[in-house]
């Protein structure tokens, strides 16, 4: 069944080299995959990235700690809120700034909203890659509602510049809680609709089951995190393993898959949306009163030191390794991009599959090229 490059040269079959991307409808941006094809069967694939490289890490070294923040919105622009969250947790830990409870809760809520919106966008693009174009627009409808919430609270929809050192920019606007409640009340129904279109659909199952299988052990070896790792049956979540920012106060499950294939990862992400919804519900029920911005100095100057702050972003472990030399600018900020690392595994996953599966596997890894290339 599986042909390797060597075999096919022995058989004197011609290998077709196909450039998928950087401009291709379903490489989610500017990913370029060089495929070696035997007919439609993929013998090898090489990712060529860097088309969106903007040098965010270099920019960070040349900006003060506060000025860096808007740039992290633009690494993983699908889940901008999570990005800023991870970085600020690191800075606040180094500065020993106490974030007020209310701000903590709102941060968690918005991060979970960001997870839902990111998963919705993933589902939308994944579905349209496989041909189900209607799910795309249904998902965008719900995402729009979340973006409206972002707009009301943060003042922007996509690159939100969500949080500030020590808390939030401003408290929740009037009517926010009602809108959020309305959204989470309606949300399960909407997810059921996607499921009605996809989960049991024989074409969807045929296209995703058994595609891109990776075992849990191998997934760890490849450094996979987040839903991709959980889809392989490993119950690991940074929110549970190394709780941060107050996540330990909330009740949620970590869904896991069984087979580690594309279908399981799909189910895991759907369930994660439900769990995020649960967290938001708890936040809304228990939201304390109080200030939303802690006492943070005007100039952020962490002491000499280094800190790694990892959070569970929608795509996996999103880490910020901040090294301070005591000045107002970071000595180095290293972003651990979850999708940069999980994209490596593409080569391993697509071998032996058909060309159409490459699309499905790229989709299931949920890459964002802004983050891969930074």
């Amino acid at each position, binding site marked *: 069944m599986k042909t390797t490059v060597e075999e096919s040269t022995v058989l004197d079959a011609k290998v077709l080299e196909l450039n998928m991307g950087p401009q291709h409808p379903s490489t989610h941006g500017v990913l370029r995959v060089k495929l070696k094809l035997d007919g439609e069967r993929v013998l090898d694939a090489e990712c060529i990235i860097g088309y969106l490289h903007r040098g965010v890490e270099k920019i960070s070294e040349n900006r003060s700690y506060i000025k860096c923040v808007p740039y992290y919105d633009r690494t993983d622009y699908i889940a901008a809120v999570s990005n800023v969250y991870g970085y600020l947790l690191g800075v606040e830990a180094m500065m020993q700034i106490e974030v007020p409870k209310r701000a903590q809760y709102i941060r968690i809520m918005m991060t979970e909203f960001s997870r839902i919106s990111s998963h919705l966008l993933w589902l939308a693009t994944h579905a349209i890659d496989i041909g189900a174009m209607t799910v795309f627009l249904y998902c965008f409808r719900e995402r729009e509602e979340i973006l409206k919430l972002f707009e*009301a609270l943060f003042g922007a929809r996509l690159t939100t510049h969500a949080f500030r050192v020590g808390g939030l920019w401003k408290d929740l606007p009037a009517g926010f809680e009602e809108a959020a409640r309305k959204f989470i009340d309606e949300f399960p129904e909407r997810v059921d609709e996607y499921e009605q279109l996809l989960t049991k659909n024989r074409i969807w199952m045929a296209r995703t089951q058994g595609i891109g299988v990776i075992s849990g052990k191998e997934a760890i070896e490849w450094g996979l995190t987040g839903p991709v790792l959980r889809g392989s049956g490993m119950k690991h979540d940074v929110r549970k393993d190394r709780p941060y920012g107050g996540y330990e106060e909330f009740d949620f499950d970590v869904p896991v898959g069984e087979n580690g294939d594309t279908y399981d990862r799909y189910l895991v992400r759907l369930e994660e949306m439900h769990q995020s919804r649960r967290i938001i519900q708890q936040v809304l029920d228990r939201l304390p009163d109080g200030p939303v911005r802690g006492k943070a100095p005007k100039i952020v100057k962490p002491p000499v030191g280094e800190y790694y702050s990892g959070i569970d972003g929608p795509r996996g472990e999103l880490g910020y390794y901040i090294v301070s030399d005591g000045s107002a600018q970071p000595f180095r900020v290293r972003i651990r991009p979850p999708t940069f690392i999980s994209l490596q595994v593409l080569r391993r996953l697509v071998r032996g599959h058909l060309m159409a599966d490459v699309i499905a596997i790229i989709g299931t890894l949920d890459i964002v090229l802004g983050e891969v290339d930074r």
Partner: protein
Amino acid sequence: MMDFLRRIFFVDILKGLALTFRYTYRKVYTEQYPLEKPKLAGRYRGAPRLNNDPVTGETLCIACDLCAEICPEDLIVVGSQRDPESRKKVLTHYTFDTSRCLFCGLCQEVCPTNAIELTQDFELAAYDRRSMVWDRKQLEKGWDRIHFGKDYHK
């Protein structure tokens, strides 16, 4: 057996079809954008504006340069002069390069007098790059929109 029957009668597909059929005659969700302007939240960060005192009509800017300092992209240039009489800094010019703006809102956050403010105006397209650098006059007036064809905004 049940499963087999389901497969034969395309139950999965018919369920999907039923859903899409229900939606076909439901109210649409989208907005017809240029005809229908979106309602933006009050906090929305769009086109910058340099506010004047509503009573006296004088600028609120005290030329403290904080916005220029905090701007990650260094796109704000504040020019000031010291008034020899009152020993106060007086704003001479102010430029804001919207083509490079991140719309992060740090400038309006840091402004002590609420002089610089990001408004809800979001249609910032211009025909050339030069007109994306706004000077003080334009900032105070607000964005003079590029109109296309028949004016959709009237």
